[in-house]
C-alpha cells in the first residue's frame, strides 16, 4: 500500500472509532444529567450506572483512536484531547444521543431505541478483523444487553400503563423516530472499512425493527408511519443541542488546559 492509501485507511479507522466513542460519550453525558433527579432512588441509580457503562465504553474507543492517531505522528494526543478539545463539527455522534432528555418517557424511549441499535451493531462488530474494535465490542455488548432489558421493561411499563404515561410514550416515540434513520445509513468511513468491519446494514435494521416491534407490541405502542428522517451526525452536522453539551463538558479543560483532579 502506498503512503496515501495507508493514511486514508488510518483516517477511516480513527473516524470509525470516534463515531462510536462520541455516540457513547454524548449519550452517557445526557443520561448522567439524571443523576440525583431520577423518579425513584433505584431508577436514579440504574440510569447513573448505565451512564457510567457508556462513558467507560467511550473511553475504550477514544484510547484506541488516540493510539492509531499517534502511530508515526510527532504530536501525541490522548483520550482527553479527543473528548474535551474537539469542536461540535468534529463530533460524529448519532443525533439521537444529543437530544435533551425531556421527561422520563422521552429519556426511556431514547435509551431503548439507541441501546437496541448498539446491541445489534456490537453483535456484528465482535467479528471485525480489527482486533481492538472487536474486543471493545465484546466487552460493551454484555453491558448493553442489560441496558436493552432495563429500558425495554420501562417502555412496557409506561406504554401499557396509565392514560397519561401512554400518551407521553406515544409523543416521545413520534418525536424520536426521525432520528433513528441515520443509524442504518453508512457514512463514508464505514463504507471504506467494509473489508475489516463487515456490517450488513439492512440486516441490522431488520433485527432492530423486529426487536422494537416485539417490545412495542407488549407496550401496546405502534411503530410510526414511514416519515422523513434526519441525518448528519456521523458527518459532523448536528442539532443546536450539541454545542450546549460541549460548552458544559469541555469548559474546564479549555479554561484550564491539562487540569487534573
Amino acid at each position, binding site marked *: 500500500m502506498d503512503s496515501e492509501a495507508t493514511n486514508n485507511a488510518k483516517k477511516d479507522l480513527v473516524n470509525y472509532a470516534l463515531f462510536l466513542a462520541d455516540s457513547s460519550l454524548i449519550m452517557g453525558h445526557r443520561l448522567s444529567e439524571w443523576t440525583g433527579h431520577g423518579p425513584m432512588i433505584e431508577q436514579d441509580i440504574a440510569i447513573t450506572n448505565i451512564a457510567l457503562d457508556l462513558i*467507560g465504553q467511550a473511553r475504550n474507543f477514544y484510547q484506541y483512536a488516540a493510539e492509531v492517531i499517534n502511530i508515526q505522528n510527532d504530536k501525541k494526543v490522548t483520550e482527553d484531547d479527543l473528548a474535551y478539545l474537539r469542536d461540535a463539527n468534529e463530533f460524529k455522534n448519532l443525533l439521537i444521543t444529543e437530544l435533551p432528555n425531556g421527561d422520563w418517557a422521552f429519556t426511556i424511549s431514547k435509551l431503548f431505541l439507541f441501546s437496541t441499535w448498539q446491541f445489534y451493531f456490537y453483535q456484528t462488530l465482535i467479528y471485525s478483523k480489527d482486533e481492538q474494535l472487536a474486543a471493545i465490542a465484546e466487552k460493551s455488548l454484555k453491558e448493553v444487553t442489560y441496558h436493552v432489558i432495563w429500558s425495554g421493561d420501562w417502555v412496557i411499563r409506561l406504554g401499557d400503563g396509565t392514560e397519561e404515561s401512554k400518551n407521553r410514550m406515544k409523543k416521545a416515540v413520534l418525536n424520536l423516530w426521525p432520528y433513528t434513520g441515520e443509524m442504518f445509513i453508512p457514512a463514508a468511513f464505514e463504507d471504506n472499512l467494509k473489508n475489516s468491519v463487515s456490517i450488513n446494514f439492512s440486516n441490522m435494521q431488520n433485527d432492530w425493527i423486529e426487536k422494537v416491534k416485539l417490545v412495542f407490541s407488549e407496550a401496546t405502542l405502534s411503530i410510526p408511519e414511514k416519515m422523513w428522517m434526519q441525518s448528519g451526525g456521523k458527518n459532523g452536522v448536528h442539532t443546536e443541542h450539541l454545542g450546549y453539551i460541549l460548552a458544559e463538558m469541555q469548559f474546564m479543560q479549555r479554561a484550564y488546559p491539562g487540569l487534573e483532579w
Partner: protein
Amino acid sequence: MNEQKINSNPPAFSETCEAWNILSSVNDPEIPVISIVDLGIVRDVKFHEEMVEVIITPTYSGCPAMDFIGANIKQALTENGFKNIKITHRLSPAWTTDWMTDEGKQKLKAFGIAPPVGKSFDKDYLETQEVECPHCHSLNTQLISQFGSTSCKALYQCNNCCEPFDYFKCH
C-alpha cells in the same frame, strides 16, 4: 535484595507462585472481602527480563476502580521486593462471572451479597429466577432493580425475611 530474583530468566516456578500469592492478598476496593484473584480480574503474570507484567481485565468498561486496583497491585508487589512492575489492561476475552472462584462466591455470600447464579453463556441468566437470600437462605426473592450500588450488582429483596440485598449479577 531482589535483583537476582528479577534477573533470573526463565523465572523459577516459585516466583510465579509467590507473585500469585501476593496478588491473592490484594482485595477489590469496592467489595473488600474478596480478592482480585477470586474475582477473576487478574488474567496472567508474566516475567520478562527485569520486569514483572500483571495482566488485568476490567469487570465493567466504566469500572472506576481499575486505576486504583493497578496502584494496589504495584504497591503489594513492591512491598514484597518485586521491581519494575508493569500493569497491562486486557479487554478480550471479556471478563465474566464464570471466572469467579468458588471460594470468592462463598466469601461474597458470607458478606451479605448473593453470588452470581448460573453460567454467563447460558442466556437464561438474564431471567434468573432463583436468587438465594444471603441472610435467611430463602429462594422466595424478587428483583427490585437490574442496577444496584455498583455496575456489577443488582438490587433484590427477600419476600421471606423482607431484607433488601445486593446480588452480584451474572455477566
